[in-house]
């Protein structure tokens, strides 16, 4: 793949994603963002779609399956689910969907809060490469990214989103 591959504008992708979710009209819906990028998106969606349930946030560090290899990350943020998940329809929001392992961890954590009605999944970008049977219902776009690359959503001080593509072994 070309090193200077043209990345889409995440601001436009967000509008596409928000529209798809809006059109779907999921009843009694609560949003849960996955730290960190997913929380930024979930916050925006929460406001734009006028969701009634307060916004939930998950840091799945305590549920990751690579703890034995990588240990605990340096900045674990508190998870907060400020509503009763029992029977609620939850829309999980993540920035870049890849192997599906983060989503597996998030679903496990959600069930420790109770038994939700449904769990839907929204991602800004689906980059393929799934290692688990997990599929999103709502995506901004699909983008084939080679395995040796990392794709990261970033947010500047003014809240503007951008995408960064870099080599996996290269620590930014």
């Amino acid at each position, binding site marked *: 793949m070309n090193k200077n591959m043209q990345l889409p504008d995440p601001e436009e992708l967000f509008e596409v994603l928000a529209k798809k979710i809006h059109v779907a009209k999921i009843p009694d819906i609560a949003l849960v963002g996955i730290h960190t990028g997913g929380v930024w998106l979930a916050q925006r969606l929460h406001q734009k779609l006028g969701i009634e349930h307060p916004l939930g946030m998950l840091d799945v560090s*305590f*549920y990751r399956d690579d703890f034995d290899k990588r*240990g*605990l990350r340096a900045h674990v943020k*508190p*998870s907060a689910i400020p509503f009763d998940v029992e029977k609620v329809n939850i829309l999980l929001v993540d920035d870049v969907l890849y192997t599906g392992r983060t989503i597996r961890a998030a679903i*496990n954590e959600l069930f*420790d809060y109770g038994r939700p009605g449904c769990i839907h999944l929204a991602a800004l970008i689906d980059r393929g490469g799934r290692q688990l049977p997990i599929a999103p219902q709502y995506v901004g776009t699909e983008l084939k990214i080679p395995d040796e690359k990392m794709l990261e959503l970033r947010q500047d001080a003014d809240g503007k989103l951008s995408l960064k593509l870099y080599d996996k072994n290269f620590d930014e």
Partner: protein
Amino acid sequence: MNSKNPQLNENGALQHLLTTEGLPISVLLHILDTAESFVGVTERDVKKIPLLRGKSIFNLFFEPSTRTRTTFEIAAKRLSADVINLNIAASSESKGETLLDTVNNLSAMNADMFVVRHSQSGAAHLIAKHARSDIRVINAGDGSHAHPTQALLDMFTIRRYKRDFHNLRVAIIGDILHSRVARSEIHALTTLGVPEVRVIAPKTLLPKMVERLGVHVYHSLEKGLKDIDVLMMLRLQNERMTGANLPSFEEYFKYYGLTPEKLSLARKDAIVMHPGPMNRGVEIDSAVADGKQSVILPQVTFGIAVRMAVMSILAGSQT
């Protein structure tokens, strides 16, 4: 093991928790921040996360303790680890087995972590040095040397109520001489940037040259409490006193017991802490222990989150 600081690995990551002395501020803050996330877990309906599933944690208590052992046990169980409690004071040691033989035997049972309480200073250190390199050790109190998890949960409590360490005056009051808690607290407070730490005690309950730890010494509770934001009370450790350090409990209470009147000399919004178990009417009056400024029970709750943080950071650190 890092030769300079046996608690850290080559990359400066925490491998054992033996003392707060010499721990970098980054490590202290990492523990406090991680504990913050665990407080959320302990408030949920399902108070359990799968992080340490399949790990075996041995509570090695060579000295009796109910509270500390229980909080370590709860912390480990909430992390889904298997916990084995050994009250060694009542078994192997009395049969003549050496400390290291006991540890080697338990290592052969595939232990992943030891939580050690011992009446001898340096016991946890010795175990960390001799145990298999993939085993993690937490000091749960060694002699009058250190009790790092107690100090960390105290730091966590202070940060919860006072937010910032940089504008605080903290007083540690009571039996400093026999207190491993006091030593660990002083090191942690100093590293976290508390500008003024006072110790308030009669001369007979202060270690020699305690000023060298960077604290201000007061022998009068009335004088020492002026402008204080945080009062850290200590338990009078009558079981460790060999000589006549004190004339009587009544006399101690008269001069050093924390009563509402004496507490009113500190700042109006000062908080009162105590590591437990309390001797009511000796170092603290019931009206203070159960009063509005007391954060003694929150300390216990936070202690579980802090111990969960320490255990998960250690279990995840690579040799």
